């Protein structure tokens, strides 16, 4: 038995802190929540209003632009058609909307943070353990306070997803920039390139494969959060998996599960293809 006099608990302190946050800054969080909700509801509305054939054509177009090959493009379109065929089209669009918003926020946060962390070893030393925590902390732990701050539904689901999905993008952006050849950096420095020219002319383009691998990882991790997100009231494919579990309807759960896998495969192939830069592809 661990001696009693050495024990302590941070639970009360954390509770007080979160309570304080909710009472004093509730309005601010409500506002953030409303803005986000507005964005995602509109995106979802747009995706669901788009006729299915137009959607398939669009995805097909993007897939062809990314891969420049017919077989993967047709497989991607075919798989999505299959999801529609089992009656999950609407839910697929809801999940897609959630994922797109979560990925967009992750990119907006992740890439700048990755760039800063590549620039400063000190920031990196602080950031990396924090990212470890974000990735390993069981998501239910931060779901509770997020729920208290933002209420039930899509918005907390997005926040939980971003916390879980942004770290790999930050890491891979940092890595990609740090891996740019030292002599190339020295050379452009010797020709008097300023920071802006270094970043946008050389570092980001050369780090692009790594950054796209990060975006790919982020989307994959966002998808893996879909079921958990549905537990706090986000609609979509995860909801069907959840209902499948609750009603012991294995078939329904499997259908939705496979639809999630298909969405993952589609996004994975497209982002990976963009990660291979043009002249590498020609090598």
């Amino acid at each position, binding site marked *: 038995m661990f001696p009693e006099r050495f024990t302590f608990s941070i639970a009360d302190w954390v509770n007080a802190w979160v309570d304080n946050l909710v009472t004093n800054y509730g309005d601010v969080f409500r506002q953030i929540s409303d803005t986000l909700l507005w964005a995602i509801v509109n995106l979802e509305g747009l995706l669901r209003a788009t006729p299915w054939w137009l959607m398939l054509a669009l995805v097909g177009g993007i897939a062809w632009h990314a891969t420049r090959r017919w077989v993967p493009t047709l497989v991607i379109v075919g798989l999505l058609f299959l999801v529609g065929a089992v009656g999950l089209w609407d839910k697929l669009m809801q999940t897609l909307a959630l994922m797109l918003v979560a990925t967009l926020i992750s990119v907006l946060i992740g890439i700048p943070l990755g760039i800063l962390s590549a620039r400063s070893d000190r920031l990196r030393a602080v950031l990396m353990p924090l990212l470890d925590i974000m990735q390993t902390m069981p998501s239910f732990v931060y779901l509770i306070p997020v729920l208290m701050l933002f209420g039930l539904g899509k918005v907390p689901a997005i926040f939980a997803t971003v916390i879980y999905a942004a770290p790999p993008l930050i890491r891979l952006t940092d890595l990609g920039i740090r891996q740019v*050849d030292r*002599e*190339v950096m*020295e*050379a*452009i*420095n*010797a*020709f*008097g*390139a*300023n920071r802006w*020219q270094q970043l946008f002319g*050389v570092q980001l*383009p*050369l780090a692009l494969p790594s950054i796209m691998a990060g975006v790919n990882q982020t989307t994959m991790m966002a998808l893996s959060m879909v079921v958990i997100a549905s537990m706090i009231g986000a609609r979509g494919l995860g909801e069907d998996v959840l209902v499948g579990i609750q009603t012991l309807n294995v078939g329904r759960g499997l259908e939705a599960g496979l639809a999630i896998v298909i969405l993952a495969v589609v996004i994975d192939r497209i982002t990976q293809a963009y990660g291979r*830069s043009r*002249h590498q592809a020609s*090598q």
Partner: protein
Amino acid sequence: MRGEQVSKIVIKHVFKIFGARPDAALAMIQQGQSKDQVLAATGCVVGVNDLSLSIGAGEIFVIMGLSGSGKSTLVRHFNRLIDPTSGEILVDGEDILRYDREALRNFRRRKISMVFQSFGLLPHKSVLDNVAYGLKVRGESKAVCQERALHWITTVGLKGYEKSYPHQLSGGMRQRVGLARALAADTDIILMDEAFSALDPLIRADMQEQLLGLQQSLHKTIVFITHDLDEAVRIGNRIAILKDGQLIQVGTPKEILHQPADEYVDRFVQRRVANV
């Protein structure tokens, strides 16, 4: 030998200490302690040790030494890719250590360019864009960039390769791109850090030939780093020999070959004679 020209680059008592305690190390080395003693006492490495030099306008000045002698460190002081721990560096009589970031950028854009041992080309840009890089960075118009870059690509013998990417070229061709990039920037001074060392002997001889040919019409101030005495003698108007960050001897190739200052220089010369 050319007459005494105007000095283009002058450095006075330059020290460069790498490590966490440069002040302590600097004090020790100025009291005459050796590089090894400084390393043992402070953990700092002495890169350049009390070096003074003057490089004339329009000459090819070769800095020679074994690896670790501080020659690549020294040449990076001339465009401040490395800042000295102590000392003065004057280019055209101006103290470049006083430059702020903006002035330094301007200096690098207009007055000094560099060719690197492993080329330092941008892998995601075509030969044309690589050669035009210096011009683009300083904000020249697209037409000027294109015109100048094409001119220098032709001059170094790479016509027809403008649209290729660096990875599609051989080592010798890549270094021609590096050379064209430095020439296109149209600076008075060109630093060449072991520019030909990574090339095989025949291509290397070609490149030396080409450099000498170009220099006849261009009259740039070229600071050339090498570890090869043959190369130094072949292209240098004057040669400086470095050891452990210290200057051992400066002179014309003739002086180096016939009156080596000490045993270290003599060993270089003997090896060359043995090779011949």
